[in-house]
């Protein structure tokens, strides 16, 4: 029986996945320079590993780019098609987050709300929802 692909959780990022399962999106940030580390990276290029801390991201951001997938070779992902995925720059640390997009995309560059969703089989992922223009000036 097919199982929906789940993130291959590395030991280092287990806290991230645990938080995500609770509905909280976190990113690792170097407290020396306040820069976020790209997901998959363990250290700050300038300050090493000692000052790296986990912080909650903003719940808003900007869509940088996206693609829509009509068909997927995996049967369970194919059941979800068509769907869109994209990369969002969140507002607090400027972290780039790969995510599933839910809702109509009016424009690459549109403002989005970030949240999480349980996709079943214990898989919780980041979800981006495009915001109507009237809600795009709300601070995070």
């Amino acid at each position, binding site marked *: 029986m097919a199982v*929906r*692909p*789940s*993130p*291959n*959780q*590395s*030991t*280092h*990022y287990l806290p991230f996945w645990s938080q995500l399962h609770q509905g909280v999106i976190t990113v690792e940030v170097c407290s020396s320079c306040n820069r976020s*580390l*790209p*997901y*998959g*990276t*363990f*250290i*700050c*290029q*300038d*300050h*090493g*590993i000692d000052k790296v801390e986990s912080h909650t991201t903003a719940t808003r951001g900007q869509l*940088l*780019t*996206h*693609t*829509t*997938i*009509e*068909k*997927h070779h*995996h049967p369970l*992902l194919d059941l*979800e*098609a068509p*769907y869109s*995925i*994209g*990369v969002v*720059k969140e507002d607090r640390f400027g972290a*780039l*987050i*790969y*995510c*599933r997009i839910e809702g109509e995309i009016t424009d*690459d*560059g549109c403002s989005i709300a970030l949240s999480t969703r349980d*996709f079943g089989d214990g*898989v919780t*992922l980041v979800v981006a929802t495009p915001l109507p223009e009237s809600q795009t000036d709300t601070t995070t």
Partner: protein
Amino acid sequence: MALAAITSWELSKFERGASLPFFDMVVTSALQTIKKSKLTPRAIDGLITIQSNFAGPAFNVTLAEILGIHPSYSLDITNYGASPAVALWHAKMAIEAKLAKRILIVGGDLTYQEMRRQSQRRPPAIAILDEFELAYGSHMANSDYAMIAQLHKKLYGTTDEMRAKVVVDQRKSALQNERALFREPTGIDDVLNSRIVSSPLHLLECVATASGASSLLVTEISEAKEIATYGLVTIEGFGYYQGGFTLANTELIQNGLVSGVAQAARGALEMARVDISEVDIFGVYDCYPIAVMIALEDLGLVPKGEIGPWVLENDLTLAGQVPVNTSGGQLSNGQIGDAGGMVNLIEVVERLAKAQNFDEGRDFEVGVATSNGGPAMSCESVTVLKAMN
């Protein structure tokens, strides 16, 4: 006179088990060595890893991603027990060749018992994608290049038709190549009418995987003169740049789509003392037409953002002023895994070599070949080749 020296080193505690996960152990050792030389990871521009049974293929790419470094020289040495010595020699050569200034050599492994306990489901570099992209339903390279194409469209107005023109010209070149897997005459409408794989990419924009093999022989010049079938081709310049591996970690997504080809090209052209305007023929890694277009911009041939109209106005076949992928490239020949770029390299080598013996219809003296690694223009190289007249 020596041009390189060892400045610091670190051995971690050796254990029968493992008190740290593999990559934490490796990163800790690497950081200690960097720190002992009073440097930060940002200063490291070269990385050589020693093959690891646990890390598997492309340990160097995985480790660079974890360290957050973007080396201009990067290798995984796979000479078994001789690997550390070979790694040291490569570091010396690379520094003497000015390919990098500070090269970190890293090795490590686990006992088989620990390896089973900490087992990865996929090779580590791919495991990073598994963790942060694939569960979202990404098609990996197809989706990443689709988002790159979408961004090029948004930033520079590059249309589907412009990308399709690259495919059309390469298929036209493939008509003259009996080895090509796809030799049908192809028009822009054929590309645009093929199904969308991952928007905005159409099926005919995606390279097809293929089975096959390829090889090249390089010898000393004196010997080469005696045994070469055609004219000699020399390797005059090389440049490499390894950016982020995942799409969300690549610089190009935030820098206006400037890929690592730009940095690699600067190094390679300078090393060869060649200006891009002197290049007669190009073999550009063509997993997708958008990759070709971005590479041509970043080689300095066309200003950033202007490749779309340029492609529509120029003929990329041998009949044009700037021949690109003249045997049809991978888009017509197929992609034989990680060796796919041999198609683009051999295209250039063959034209340069044969131009010295046969009438190619024009005089090819300088050629450039590029290659991409990873799902989002992550590992980029540029090679400058010259016909030895």
